[in-house]
């Protein structure tokens, strides 16, 4: 279920109301650039009132500037409010799914029915077939098939069971079959969804490091323009002109980076929101942003790169054994075997030859750690399958050279050789292969172009690991890895100054998840993993991290693009306002009015109107984000510099001219 951007009339009205509430000076002070605009608005309003009292001719002009200054703040607030509301709406749409549930609380005196929202942390409750799980928790006992479509949109049910790495359940999902006892893992109001809502609502929203650095730069620029504008009265007085405070305030507001300062909060919230629409719940805005910076992505082989299990792909009979005999023996030995590998042998065998009627009196021999073989005893003899060394022990002598060659060729190609023997005579080899998920190669290629190195972590031997890494198009692999090795690997890369991302679901992944810079935990995973990670994927799809990386990059690009655009805009504003200020004293400056704006008053008014209107005009871009394409850093920068740098210089010339024409048509001047 890809959640759509929620944008309706109701939300617009709410955002408008919110943007007036946000005029609160304490709230404004958090955004220094907009605070300066706020002071300008108050001052021009006071001047307008004074003009009214003194019947000054300036009244109309001062009032107009004042109104547009207030609108500038209003538009900026509107952008932030709209982004907040959108994020909140997304989260609320999820929360509504579990609003009114009842829970069977486990007490020493048996189970008691209570409303789901009264569950406390570490309470235990029981969910039976057909019931909705009231809140997030971890299964202590039992196994269940759960429909998670309410949060993931995926209709196929998933299995969740106690003890393993897939013991987490989410509030709002439904148990289709089975009965589980669950322990509540969060305090009421502190589930991931609650945190998510807090994150977009501003209460706990913290600026990311990058946002702070940008804000410092914006403050620096604001100070510089303050110095510039404050020096103008002296220059004017030297030129014999009385400087108008209204014009000076208008010029200051036009020059300081209001566009980016107004949209900055919205961009950040929209980033978290975009992650959320991809079904990833970020625990902080920083997490999403850092995702754009990662250098190395660690991926588990099993479950992430390959399907969880191996598939039989080929039968390799030994010398002197017919293919049919090998296939039939493999088929018989695998029929009682319920493992995915066993089933895949049966499937492959049945596509090769017609097989039917297994002997009724066949006795299944299950796999034991001692023999490390499984098989079947039929009236025709005993059939065994297992790893090469296990069968060798069973056969009691060395394999023929051709069989040994078959075994090692399978291993070399990254597969697992399974040797089948009948009556202590080896028949041949079944080639079991890791099946790589489709479409991964393209995604890894995309990551490579983004500058992210992909590393596969696997417990396999280096030979197999290399073959799989090559086939899947990964940059590197780390073979024969134990869980603690992953942690060491992350630390080693971080030591070199690299940022590492990983995905994980198990409890033994938790330390590595906590160490990694970006850690995407699977929602199906254990509570420990979900706590350690800084993002949770509701779909439990390990490759989702790639999307998160793109969202992070998009966030940074949008921020940079709008900053560049905002500053480039100043050129046109100078050309609109400065000649207007000095043309009465020095008519020869008329040539600098390159937009040939009608009058000084219309020129200044047009500039301030443009400065205000550009904020709502860019809201869609701020919320949607600038498109990211992995075409290499330089090409991307060149493209964005052209669009937002050069475009930022040109667009306001056109915009201010058009507004000036409109003002003339309205007889405003």
């Amino acid at each position: 279920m890809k959640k759509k951007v929620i944008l309706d009339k109701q939300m617009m009205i709410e955002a408008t109301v919110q943007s007036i509430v946000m005029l609160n000076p304490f709230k404004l002070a958090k955004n220094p650039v907009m605070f300066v605009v706020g002071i300008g608005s108050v001052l021009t309003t006071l001047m307008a009132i004074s003009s009214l009292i003194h019947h000054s001719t300036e009244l109309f002009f001062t009032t107009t500037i004042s109104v547009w200054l207030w609108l500038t703040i209003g538009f900026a607030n509107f952008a932030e409010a709209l982004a907040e509301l959108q994020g909140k709406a997304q989260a609320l749409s999820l929360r509504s799914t579990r609003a009114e549930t009842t829970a069977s609380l486990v007490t020493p005196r048996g189970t008691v029915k209570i409303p789901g929202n009264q569950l406390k942390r570490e309470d235990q409750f029981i969910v039976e077939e057909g019931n909705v799980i009231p809140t997030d928790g971890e299964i202590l006992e039992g196994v269940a098939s759960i429909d998670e479509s309410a949060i993931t949109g995926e209709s196929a049910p998933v299995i969740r069971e106690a003890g393993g790495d897939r013991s987490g359940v989410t509030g709002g999902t439904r148990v289709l079959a089975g009965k589980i006892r669950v322990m509540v893992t969060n305090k009421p109001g502190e589930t991931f969804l609650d945190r998510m809502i807090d994150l977009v609502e501003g209460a706990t929203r913290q600026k990311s490091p990058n946002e702070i650095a940008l804000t410092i730069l914006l403050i620096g620029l604001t100070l510089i323009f303050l110095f510039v504008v404050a020096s103008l009265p002296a220059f004017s007085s030297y030129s014999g002109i009385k400087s108008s405070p209204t014009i000076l305030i208008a010029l200051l507001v036009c020059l300081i980076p209001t566009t980016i300062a107004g949209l900055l909060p919205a961009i950040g919230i929209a980033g978290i929101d975009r992650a959320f629409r991809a079904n990833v719940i970020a625990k902080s805005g920083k997490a999403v942003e850092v995702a754009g910076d990662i250098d190395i992505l660690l991926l588990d082989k099993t479950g992430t790169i390959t399907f969880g299990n191996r598939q039989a792909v080929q039968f390799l009979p030994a010398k002197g054994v017919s293919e049919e005999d090998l296939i039939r023996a493999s088929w018989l030995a695998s029929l009682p075997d319920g493992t995915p590998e066993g089933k895949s042998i049966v499937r492959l065998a049945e596509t090769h030859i017609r097989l039917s009627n297994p002997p009724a009196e066949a006795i299944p021999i299950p796999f034991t750690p001692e023999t490390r073989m499984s098989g079947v005893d039929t009236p025709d003899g005993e059939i065994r399958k297992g790893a090469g060394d296990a069968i060798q022990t069973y056969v009691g002598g060395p394999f023929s050279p051709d069989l040994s060659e078959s075994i090692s060729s399978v291993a070399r190609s990254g597969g697992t050789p399974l040797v089948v023997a009948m009556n202590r005579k080896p028949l041949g080899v079944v080639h079991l292969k890791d099946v790589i998920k489709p479409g991964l190669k393209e995604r890894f290629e995309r990551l490579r172009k983004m500058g992210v190195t992909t590393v596969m972590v696997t417990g396999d031997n280096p030979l197999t690991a290399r073959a799989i890494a090559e086939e899947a198009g990964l940059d590197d692999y780390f073979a024969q890895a134990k869980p603690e090795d992953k942690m060491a690997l992350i630390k080693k890369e971080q030591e070199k100054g690299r940022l590492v991302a990983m995905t994980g679901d198990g409890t033994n992944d938790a330390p590595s998840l906590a160490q990694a810079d970006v850690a995407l935990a699977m929602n199906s995973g254990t509570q420990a993993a979900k706590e350690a990670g800084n993002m949770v994927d509701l779909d439990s799809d390990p490759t989702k991290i790639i999307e998160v990386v793109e969202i992070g990059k998009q966030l940074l690009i949008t921020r940079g693009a709008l900053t560049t655009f905002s500053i480039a805009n100043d050129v046109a504003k100078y050309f609109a306002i400065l000649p207007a200020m000095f043309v009465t004293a020095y008519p020869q400056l008329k040539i600098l009015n390159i937009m040939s704006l009608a009058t000084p008053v219309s020129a200044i008014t047009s500039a301030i109107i443009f400065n205000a209107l550009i904020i709502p005009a860019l809201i869609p871009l701020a919320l949607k984000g600038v498109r990211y394409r992995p075409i290499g850093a330089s090409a991307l920068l060149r493209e964005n510099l052209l669009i937002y740098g050069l475009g930022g210089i040109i667009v306001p010339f056109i915009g201010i001219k058009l507004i000036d024409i409109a003002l003339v048509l309205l007889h405003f001047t």
Partner: protein
Amino acid sequence: MIANDWIQILFSLGVTVLLAPLVGRYLAWIYKGPHLSLERGFYRLVGINPDHEMTWKEYGAVLLVSNAFFFAAGFLVLWAQPVLPLNPRNLPPLSPELTFNTAASFVTNTNWQAYAGEAQLSNLSQMLAITFLMFVGANTGMASLVAIFKGFTRSGSQTIGNFWTDFVRFFIRAFLPACFLMALIHVYQGSPQTLRTQITAHTLEGPPQTLIVGPVASLESLKHLGTNGGGFYNANGAHPYENPTPLTNTLEFLEMGLFTFSLPFFFGRMIGRPRQGQVFFIAILTLYLSGFALIEYSERMPNPLLAHASVEQQVGPLSDGGNTEGKETRFGITQTSLFSNTTIAATTGAVDGAMDSMNPLSILVYLVHMFLNEEPGGKGVGFAGLLKEAILAIFLAGLMVGRSPEFLGKRIESREIKLASLSLLVTPLLVLWLTGISLLLPSGKSSMGNPGPHGFMEVLYAFSSGNANNGSAMAGLNVSTPYYAILLGVEMLLGRFLPLLPLLALAGALARKKTHPETAGTFKTDQPLFIVLLLGFMILFAALTFFPPLMLGPLLEHLSLLHGISF
């Protein structure tokens, strides 16, 4: 322009471009290698541990304290001139405010001269105060640049080197030998180098003429090699004893560029990325050449106001054409344009023509050079400023590649932005506000000799020069009043040390950071796009900050000229 002009331009620039990489490589050798035994001996003598590593705070403190000492020493020598030896003319001391102004001017490598050297200073003052401060001022700038380089060459380090070794190495291995050699050439070309104070010449007209002489050649080579600019004589490079022949004019041009243009190559070698150095060099050269082209164009332009007067402004057999007012006929327009562009761009501030007589568009170029102060900028500090601009440009636009901005493997975060912005704030604050205040106050206005935009430019120019530690004066403004002497003196000190300390802190912050390996997603800064980004940011930033004064000064005067309006 005639063929001769082109030969002059191509020769001077060609030699500069050829020498710069070689000198850059030599400087890198100086700083990468071990101590020389000569240096070790010196350290032992004065009791310095050359291997002691300093944090940025310690480095900054040592730099400030040593400069305070240099300042005090210079001040005392000037102040005690009457009682000190080598003053046969019994020259009185400079006034206290002028003494302060001069000591501040020379310790900050500004070399703003509110006094007339030949009339007011004894030979001892010229040597012990002026020459001494010229050496240590330039050397301090160079040392601070080397410290700032450490921000990029070090990873995970708390320290940025040792001020004294950074100071001494350049002095012993490059600065002093070069100055000595060039001084000999200046003597050979006719500059005086003597402890005598005056000689009497018998003129053709009959009456004798007294000519002031002294240790001119040594001061002259240092003045250019150290991008100092302070002359022995008031007329500076236009005085025949300071700049006797077209050869010395060319040599002085080359001396100004010798160390300054080599700094990007020096940087490239130090960080182990020579290409990065070349890219910075091209950026600097582009700005420098654009400035020169505009000056040359502007000076060749006939003055419309003089069109009806009988002034020959076209190129003819007897005239070079264009604006020859205030130019040495020995040098002509091209040599003067080339020299003035270099002297301002490299913050030497020496002049070989009258700046006040330049056309307004030339003044525009000078002002922009001083606002940017980085193409190539003064000894050391200019290139350090360029690195700061690069950091800001990369932060601003670098986000657009979709990664947290990085420059040469160092991640740019809030601390770096804070320090770079702090350093950036100083120029607009000092230049705009001090100009504005002076235009309002009677003591500021009373010194102005011209009305309208020209008078405005003269004040703006003075404060731009003081802030940029440039030292050139447009003249036309009486700056030997207590008001200007003190205000400009304070401005030179603030303009020198206020931007420098945040840059040292920036180096400290960068040195502490780990160097981040490059990936395919990193924006490579050693390619043409970086030049476009850097120049775009610098020009846009300078334009946005200084558009109002540039419009009311040079642009207004230029437009007035075209409209035939005078003030």
